[in-house]
């Protein structure tokens, strides 16, 4: 009972601190909301559409023109220009006007009709990987279709049935199933790891910041006195209000993306609740631990921000961890976001049982318990350290 009252009192004191220093208002409300809005709005298309491409049509017959028109009708690409030569089209890519182009050399139609196997080419820039691979998909489809259309006409003239023509053109068909994300949407794939990664950044920083500020503004002794110098009670009371705010943000975001925007998630709501809780507690654990390890405000905050920024790459959501060098694969365990991502993709996106990701669950749990290793050091710092700018 005594502990509960102390925790309540320290919690109230913390709320007052949070209200008074407007850095907290920015970093616990304004910036997180801004980040959430940023990532969900910048990719709201899901897949990029209408990306600029060009056509270099040196043949200029009705057949090649219809090829270009059909390319324009594709959803992802838009034909914005026609260039008289490959060199100029290539230059246009360098000027950032187009991402790729279709090149139809002179005499294509003639050679096609005369059975001399002409060649068309499509060029695309991989310097911007997403745009390049998307544009490549459409350019490839249109060129293959062009080839198929001619083959179809020849075969029909020879008296094959439609079924046979289909087989002769493409004997083996690939039937693609994109498990759990059938639209291949980029939004649902980037927003679900980038935003939690950014939330972890804020939680890391604020946890270390709020501890360091007790020393910086000389209020640490008073804080501990309120808990009768029991550091566990003091920490619980201090971080409980923050935890509640973070949880509100995280659950609000989960509700928004999974219920309002309908991002794919095969795992049930309980899994989302568990994941959100683990995310917040593990991140707080890391923040407190890093302050305990180096009880200097600027060092711990520097470490927190560097770690959080690195973890966005080390989570392996864009460039997979399995493709990195061996030592890096093991190092990735040191980043809470890595475990979060594995838990998310196994249990939420694909809806497999929690057992399949037990290792990463344990990883996040370990981050939660980290502060336990340094409580003594934190207490010592609070009672004896003096802030030096």
């Amino acid at each position, binding site marked *: 009972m005594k502990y509960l009252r102390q925790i309540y009192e320290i919690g109230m004191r913390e709320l007052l601190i949070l209200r008074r220093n407007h850095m907290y208002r920015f970093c616990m409300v304004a910036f997180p909301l801004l980040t959430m809005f940023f990532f969900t709005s910048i990719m709201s298309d899901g897949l990029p*559409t*209408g990306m600029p491409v060009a056509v270099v049509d040196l043949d200029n017959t009705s057949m090649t023109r219809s090829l270009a028109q059909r390319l324009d009708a594709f959803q992802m690409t838009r034909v914005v220009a026609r260039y008289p030569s490959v060199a100029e089209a290539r230059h246009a890519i360098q000027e950032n006007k187009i991402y790729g182009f279709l090149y139809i050399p002179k005499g294509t139609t003639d050679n096609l009709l005369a059975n001399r*196997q002409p060649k068309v080419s499509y060029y695309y*820039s991989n310097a911007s990987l997403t745009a390049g691979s998307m544009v490549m998909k459409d350019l490839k489809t249109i060129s293959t279709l062009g080839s198929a259309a001619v083959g179809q006409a020849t075969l029909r003239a020879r008296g094959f049935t439609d079924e046979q023509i289909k087989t002769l053109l493409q004997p083996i068909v690939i039937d693609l199933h994109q498990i759990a994300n059938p639209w291949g949407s980029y939004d649902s794939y980037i927003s679900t790891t980038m935003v939690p990664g950014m939330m972890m950044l804020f939680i890391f920083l604020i946890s270390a910041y709020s501890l360091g500020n007790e020393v910086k503004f000389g209020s640490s002794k008073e804080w501990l006195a309120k808990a009768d110098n029991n550091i566990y009670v003091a920490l619980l009371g201090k971080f409980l209000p923050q935890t509640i705010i973070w949880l509100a943000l995280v659950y609000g975001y989960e509700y928004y993306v999974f219920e309002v925007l309908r991002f794919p998630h095969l795992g049930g709501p309980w899994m989302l609740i568990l994941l959100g809780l683990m995310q917040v507690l593990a991140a707080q654990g890391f923040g407190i631990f890093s302050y305990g390890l180096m009880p200097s405000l600027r060092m711990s905050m520097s470490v927190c921000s560097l770690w959080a920024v690195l973890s966005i790459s080390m989570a392996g959501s864009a460039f997979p961890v399995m493709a990195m060098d061996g030592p890096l694969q093991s190092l990735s365990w040191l980043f809470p976001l890595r475990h979060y991502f594995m838990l998310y993709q196994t249990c939420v996106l694909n809806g497999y049982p929690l057992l399949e990701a037990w290792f990463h669950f344990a990883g996040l749990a370990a981050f939660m318990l980290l502060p336990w290793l340094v409580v003594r050091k934190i207490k010592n710092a609070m009672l004896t350290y003096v802030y030096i700018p």
Partner: protein
Amino acid sequence: MIRDTFFIWRQELKEVFNDEGVLIFFIIVPLVYPLLYSWIYNNETVREVPVVVVDDSHTGLSRRFVRMCDASPDVHIACYAQDMDEAKSLVSRQVAKGIYFIPSDFETRVNRLEQATISVYCDMSLMLAYKAVYQTAQLVSMEMGSEIKTKLGGRYTSREEAIATRPLDVADVPVFNPSGGYGSFILPAVLMLILQQTLVLGIGMAAGTARENNRYKQLIPISRPYQGVFRIVFGKSLCYFMIYALMGTWLTVVIPWIFGFPQLASGWTLLVLMFPYILACIFFGIVMSCMVKYRENVMLLMVFVSVPLLFLSGISWPQSNIPAFWQGVSWIFPSTYGVRAYMRLNSMGATLGDVATELRMLWLHVAIYFALACAVYRYQIYLTRQDALSRLHEMKKKKKRKNLEGTK
């Protein structure tokens, strides 16, 4: 005036090298982070993605399909499963990233002149793994398809066969970063961003320290050299520029050279780009630093911006598809133009003329942020003077009161 400028320059240099917080952001992060990122992305592409096969056909043709997939660089056949349930459990345990399912009537259908189907199930949690699994199956099926087609056709010459199966030949030509390497694609952007972010963080921190060390919590001391706006801005900028001339060389010349990333820009073009970019970042940092009251706050303000800035530069998400509102926001930051210009000069071999828009915008940033930096320092000087005057006033009052009390 020039003496004062150099005095401030020396003072600033001393502060930078005495402050471990600033040192971390000015020296250590720009030195170490690029190495780390290059190491992370050094493998460039995803090879040998594990796939599980469910082969219900058990025929020569189906085994040939599996063998050809296994022989491809991107896919590795990790295991065979008896049925789809087993395969699914292997995927859920992360043993495999996809499933190739070959139905029992696969070869029969091919022989009957009917289209045969192979089902590919992809784990969508990793886009690059999905692409490897799907594209390999597609390529192999096309390759096998054209073999089957030639067999079915029954023609006289091999040339005729080739033309019949493919009347129109298609060439796939990736230009710039032809291997589609992930590192070569993302690193130019990351390098340029590191430059801007560490500069802003370092300058902000130095300013925060100056303010905290000052007796009256002012950004600038009242002493004589600090009485002119230009000498302050020039003096400080000169100090930062010296450090970042070195760091810029390290980031844009040495790092790509060590890790063998594409490097098409010549030294001269890089110089033309980096000069305004570093200047714009410095003045931008100075403007931001005036908003910092305590030294640590700059981290809370600036670190989280890094990731959105990467997206705004139009590298990972196509620039043509960024909503207009965010396009507008991206105009504020020098990094947007720095990244775009550097990527096109360095990875795409563009000429300076091709990036004229970006260069012009960078010079505009230099001008605007320089003016703003002068304005904010003007205001700081004004504040300091006001503060000193009011303090003087207070002191005089106190003295007077004391005198009065003394005469009573």
